[in-house]
């Protein structure tokens, strides 16, 4: 769902938001947005909204306000991880994040706490799927070879995790009794 003219994206017509966070001109950092595009084609946009963001912190808060379930797809760089590995988190796993956080205002976790204290409609369920990457400091529209080699596998892994964690994504949309074929 594209941002409405003249306004921040409102809570969409669906209750689930798939949010791909990343920068698609910084090599592997584009994994979030690319997977979001992939998932948009695989799942129906009648059961979930799909958005891509290049921001974090307070702006993420503004996008997730009003949804019941939000799945954030982002990149991660750990010390020992293998490129293309998948990690699953909830906000409780983080004392602090750096880059869902990545904004000069506040971290994502602090933004969530702020949203709750200000009585925003914070989603009851927030899941974070992170993909281990190699490079995010070099300008390129392509993945590194290491991530590219595993990308199809990454796509399938993320799909399977989503189908398990958010089974509503796979259900056919409810049909109004008044709707005709």
């Amino acid at each position, binding site marked *: 769902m594209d*941002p409405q*003219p*003249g*306004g*921040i994206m409102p809570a969409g017509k669906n209750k689930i938001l798939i949010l791909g*966070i*990343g*920068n*698609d*001109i*910084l090599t*592997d*950092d584009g994994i*979030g947005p690319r997977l979001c595009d992939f998932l948009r084609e695989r799942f129906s946009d009648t059961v979930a909204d799909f958005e891509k*963001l*290049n*921001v*974090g912190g*307070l*702006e993420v*808060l*503004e996008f997730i306000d009003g949804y019941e379930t939000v799945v954030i797809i*982002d*990149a*991660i*760089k*750990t010390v020992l991880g293998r490129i293309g590995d998948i*990690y699953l988190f909830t906000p409780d796993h*983080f*004392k*602090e*994040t*750096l*880059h*869902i*956080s*990545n*904004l*000069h*205002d*506040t*971290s994502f976790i*602090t933004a969530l*706490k*702020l949203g709750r*204290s*200000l009585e925003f409609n914070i989603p009851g369920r927030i899941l*974070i799927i*992170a993909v281990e*990457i190699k490079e*995010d*400091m*070099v*300008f*390129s529209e392509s993945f590194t070879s290491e991530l590219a080699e595993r990308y199809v596998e990454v796509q399938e892994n993320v799909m399977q995790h989503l189908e398990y964690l958010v089974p509503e994504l796979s259900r056919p949309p409810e049909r109004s009794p008044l709707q005709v074929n």
Partner: protein
Amino acid sequence: MKRRITIDPITRLEGHGKIEIFLKDDGDVENVYFQVPELRGFEKFCEGRPVEELPQIVTKICGVCPGCHHMASGKAIDAVYGVEPPPTAKKLRELFYMAHFVHSHIAHFYALAAPDFVVGPTAAKAERNILGVINKVGVDIGTEVIRQRRIAQEIQALLGGHQTHVVMNIPGGVRKGLTEEQRADIEGKAKGFIDFAKFSLKIFNDVVLGNKDYVELILNGPYSLTLHSMGLVDENNKVNFYDGKVRVVDTEGNEHCKYAPEDYRDFVAERVEPWSYLKFPYLKKIGWKGFVDGKDSGVYQATPLARLNAADGMATPLAQTEYERMFEVLGGKPVHSTLAMHWARLVELLYSAERCLELSTDPEITGKDLRSPLPNIPNEGVGIVEAQRGTLTHHYITDDKGMVLKANLIVGTTNNNAAICMSLKKAAQGLISKGVEVTDGILNMIEMAFRAYDPCFSCATHSLPGEMPMIVNIREKDGTLIRSVIRRN
């Protein structure tokens, strides 16, 4: 025996970096190094692309100031084609840009600066964030912070096509105009910005200026640096964020130089140090004299405070009143106290709000002439704007078909790289000495020295590290670890 204290990564900072503090044997600070990783390969990435793509590409350099890059890039491609946009287009660009300043300055003050002053620089770290600020000032104010910021983003989305990935600028103008209904809506919102800016200045007055310890910290704390000041000014030498010439004044406020964008290379040069990825710009006519301050130093600052130092005033009445008050309280122009940047930033917030109102009520803002024709063969162009954190320069060279051959950027924070290093060193030397325990509060007070600059490093990436340790290592001269302090927010 030298000892090293490391702050890595830095908190409440866009991007990531590391501070290395080296102690002398007696426990005093010998030197401080501020190291940042830098995004690489932008010039290569742009080669071969149509130059009119760049305003959209550059919005992805930074997730915090995409509008700044978009504006500088738009002006650069105008220059590449040798054209000036029509008045309506320039005013629409500036209106977008003022909304961008409003949202950014609100975010910085309440999320980054206010925790140090409203909650306290040595308060428990769990409270030293925007939540602590809200606890002190109240939920209603917190809600208003988010609301005003959101409204500014809505204006950006309306004018720019997207609040972050702006698509507004094309060579010679902008893609779309404003209806009367949209104009009236922005006018109403701009009045709200003015009220909120005045309210924010009142908070600063009551909480910061009303606390003599904070005033002492601003005036006499280890946070002063006597450097040249740089900022964009209009034809009357008043602060302008979108257009004009770059003016530099010396440490006593006398004009050192004033240049048009295309002449920037005659006045600013860049230096490389082996211990940092980020370059160090300096004033060419003075030359590089090292990491020193004073009238004879080539190091300069390009910050909200520097902009106000470099100008003869603000172009809007309420901001002008606050501008005069600030300099009166701080002892006259120019002001060299690093922490005064926070005050200057709020004066700029008020100016941005007033300028939003001025532009939204300008008869030409709903005009239909949005783009100038492009009769010239593309060649080379420079576009300069003020980013929230400093003077931003985009320089493009193309072939005769408008395909990029070369691109060069000097981003806002890069201007301040040397000054940031020096501010950190000065703060560390003032706060750390023999017998002083290096507490979390002390480390936070050192970080205050660079947070005032609202720096933005490597901010376009979004990778999770899994955790965010801030490790402070104190080592013997031979590198043996004697103490490690882990900071977590």
